[in-house]
């Protein structure tokens, strides 16, 4: 009897642990977080349209913990970031993530009706340092837009650092815009312009 209980307990624990490792994997992370954001937007679309700031707050709370914004910032700065003070890179990472949150939010509001997302299963093994999560966002006319997230393994678990829409990478595209501008006008000027919304580099 006692042995049986112990065994049952052991099973429960191992199952619990198993579930935990699963939930930490990129596909599950994307499913949970985007699933939540999309459901929230679909239900309260009118409310968020009236108050876009509220949606930005939601996206920021949900999405930012998933992102490795400092890594993204380093990739975008590339050669132009060489020799910069770490605080400057952090500052740049913050304005870039604000820009991303604001674009992501306004993108969500452009959907006129219900939005939906389908996360495709993980392909290949997760033993690499970098992996990709593929999703399909259902758009108004019934078509699907492919949105992929690039993830990397960090000491704090898997973090996303790039968004790729129809093959167009956020990192690559912003990088080629921002790198020469930082080289020409300096990091402070670029941080200020992105922060003040004077600049919205697009995809």
């Amino acid at each position, binding site marked *: 009897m006692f042995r049986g209980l112990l065994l049952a307990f052991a099973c429960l624990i191992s199952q619990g642990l198993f579930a935990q490792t699963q939930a930490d994997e990129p596909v599950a992370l994307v499913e949970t977080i985007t699933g939540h954001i999309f459901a929230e937007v679909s239900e309260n679309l009118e409310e968020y349209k009236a108050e876009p700031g509220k949606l930005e707050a939601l996206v920021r709370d949900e999405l930012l913990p998933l992102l490795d914004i400092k890594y993204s910032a380093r*990739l975008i700065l590339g*050669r132009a970031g*060489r020799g910069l003070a770490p605080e400057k890179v952090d500052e740049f990472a913050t304005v870039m993530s604000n820009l991303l949150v604001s674009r992501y939010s306004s993108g969500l509001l452009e959907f006129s009706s219900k939005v939906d997302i389908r996360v495709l299963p993980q392909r290949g093994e997760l033993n690499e340092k970098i992996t990709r999560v593929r999703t399909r966002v259902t758009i108004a*006319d019934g078509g699907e837009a492919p949105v992929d997230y690039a993830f990397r393994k960090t000491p704090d678990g898997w973090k996303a650092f790039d968004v790729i829409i129809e*093959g*167009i990478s956020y990192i690559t*595209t912003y990088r080629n*815009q921002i790198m020469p*501008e930082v080289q020409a006008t300096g990091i402070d000027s670029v941080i200020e312009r992105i922060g003040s919304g004077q600049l919205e580099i697009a995809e």
Partner: protein
Amino acid sequence: MSTRLYFICVICAGLLLTGCAGTQSRNTDPENDPWEGYNRKVYAFNEGMDKVVRPVAVGYDRIMPDPLQTGVGNFFRNLDAPITFINQVLQGKLKQGGTTAGRFLLNSTLGLLGFIDVASKMGLPYYNEDLGQTLAVWGYEDSRYMMLPFLGPSTFRDGPARIIDNYYSPVGSVIGGNVRWGLFLVRGVDTRARFLDQDAELEQAYDPYVLMRDVWLQNRQYQIYDGDPPLQDYDLYLEDFDEEPEPGTGNTP
């Protein structure tokens, strides 16, 4: 457009452009875009043309109800189905080729000359292939970026390939004379109208030329790999950040 006429236009544009040669010495992407100086001139030329084309596209966008515009898009997409089919066969994608042939038959008949995409509603997916993609699949993977007068972004591989594709397409071979020209013009306006939403974003970019190039090249890669291109080499970006990069080698044919 008839090929001979197009070449005459290209040559004329080339002459115009050498006239206004603002020397652009910097090269933002020596590997993919070694002809940046020339390309920027063609880009400027196209921007000039756009001052005429854009207002027409805006007007078209305003008077056309959305469902009708979707219909026009479907119609042109259907006309390209034979190009897709032939290139699917050339790439050995026979099953997808069968789907494309089926789509073409269904949409051309039940779909009223392609205006209604009945095939998609019946679950036959749309594919898009062309000779440029076939050449890439055959091994001609990297090709230098080339801005074409009137037609916009392309590559050294895709530009000529596009002309060959248009030879055997229904528009190029079956439909003749004024109808062909009419279709060409309507398609141009319709295509332009679809990009109106992106105008503001392009204008706001630090470097609109580079933005258009990067978006186009990445999306092209996405088409070549049928929606599943390999990830960027991010480590390379990081090496840039950490240390001195190697000088760019611009030897892509």
